[in-house]
């Protein structure tokens, strides 16, 4: 038997136990990159990250980040040294982030129209004032990419120069490949009853849905891996930060959830050109901004088939689709993130002059 290098094995065990206890019972500090609130509306806040690069070296076109409606956008700024926001700020971008906040009972009637035609245009308006630039780049991730796509289609002349879509669930044609489509089928999921009961779709139910896609990995293996890596403070810190983000649950406004299930999952209206917001038909062909579409090849939440077809629908002349090995969250905040970020920077830098 090898001799232990620890002078006191009980101390090592105690430290390990404390580390595990902290990871399992406390919140990790996430979203640490310095920022300031520049605009608010209802629960939404627009943050501007403090630039670290001198103005003359900065990209003049600002970048607005839009995440999904469930979960916090702090996934884009998970922890120092492992933050997409930090990376882009250091790369010289004027970075803004739109935090949707947590909808209350009074927000249950909010729909994608509110998000795409009220909140984003107003946030963009403020961003233009603060940045001094009439053109901007817009990055949407997950359901954030649905909202940015809707905005880009309905307001193509607002100054949108570059649009970046990450793991974008836009095409719901291949229902047999979409687990969520099966679970929310009209035969099994009474949407009206759920929303009549709760108003907004509870974050706990969304969380269960996301975890149930891979139940053993999410409810068992994740904790087994934590225990296996308990001697590695870096690994525990990474787990802790990710778990803090995952457990910060956010409900989805009832109106938006209804559209997500009925208009998108069940009837695929966006790709079919039948999606109507406030009397305006969403025509993807009106999108003319430069487009970067990033697909995660091991994405079990948004399979590649959901993101590919948009490339043939838009009118953008400068468009590129890249596939990155990794999962829905992993490509931006996990193991593959540090390969993804430079690709985004490479594409965006030349288009942000």
């Amino acid at each position, binding site marked *: 038997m090898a001799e232990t290098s620890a002078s006191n094995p009980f101390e090592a065990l105690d430290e390990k136990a404390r580390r595990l206890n902290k990871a399992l019972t406390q919140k990790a500090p996430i979203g640490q990159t310095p920022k300031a609130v520049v605009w608010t509306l209802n629960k939404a806040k627009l943050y501007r990250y403090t630039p670290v690069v001198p103005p003359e070296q900065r990209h003049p076109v600002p970048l607005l980040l839009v995440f999904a409606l469930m979960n916090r956008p702090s996934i884009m700024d998970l922890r120092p040294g492992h933050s997409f926001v930090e990376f882009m700020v250091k790369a010289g971008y004027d970075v803004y982030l739109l935090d949707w906040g947590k909808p209350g009972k*009074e927000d249950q009637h909010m729909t994608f129209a509110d998000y795409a035609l009220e909140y984003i245009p107003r946030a963009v308006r403020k961003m233009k004032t603060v940045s001094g630039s009439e053109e901007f780049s817009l990055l949407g991730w997950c359901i954030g990419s649905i909202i940015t796509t809707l905005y880009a289609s309905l307001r193509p002349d607002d100054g949108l120069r570059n649009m970046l879509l990450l793991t974008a669930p836009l095409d719901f044609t291949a229902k047999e490949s979409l687990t969520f489509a099966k679970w929310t089928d009209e035969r099994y999921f009474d949407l009206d009853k759920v929303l009549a009961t709760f108003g907004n779709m509870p974050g706990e139910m969304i969380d269960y849905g996301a975890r149930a896609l891979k139940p053993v990995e999410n409810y068992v293996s994740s904790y087994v891996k934590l225990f296996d890596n308990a001697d590695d403070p870096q690994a525990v810190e990474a787990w802790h930060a990710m778990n803090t983000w995952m457990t910060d649950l956010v409900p989805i406004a009832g109106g938006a959830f209804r559209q997500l299930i009925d208009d998108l999952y069940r009837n695929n209206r966006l790709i079919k050109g039948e999606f109507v917001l406030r009397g305006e038909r969403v025509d993807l062909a009106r999108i003319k901004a430069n487009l970067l579409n990033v697909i995660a090849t091991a994405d079990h939440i948004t399979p590649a088939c959901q993101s590919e077809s948009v490339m043939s629908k838009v009118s953008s002349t400068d468009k590129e689709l890249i596939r990155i090995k990794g999962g829905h969250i992993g490509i931006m905040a996990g193991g593959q993130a540090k390969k993804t970020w430079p690709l985004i920077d490479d594409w965006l830098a030349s288009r942000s002059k």
Partner: protein
Amino acid sequence: MSDKQQPVNPFDPATWQAGRDAYLDAWAKAMVEAVNTDQYAKATGQMLDSYLSASHPLREVLEKSMVHALQHLNMPSSTDLTALAERVTNIEMRLDDMDAKLDRIVKQFAQAAPAKPRGVAVKTKRARSTKRG
């Protein structure tokens, strides 16, 4: 020097860990297949529906009692507060529009204002108080 053949130790943590991981992998694959079936979708849908149906009468009674009690206490209900919050959001939107208009006006003024000449320092005389001893 010849290598000694080490006997397999069934209590070796590495062996146990490998076995555990293999079991978890197999279990994970089986569960992913299971949750992708129509039967699973039907079962979870039925469970949710049962819960919502069973809890509906109680929720309705609680809600009515609460509204009744609050009315008697002359206090607002959650519906009243929700309506108020919606109006506050509308007010916020109008304020946001006003803020945007002010930003535009300030910008226009800044662009239109000519460069001011440097002001000349003006000496002012102070009234001196004279003391007569």
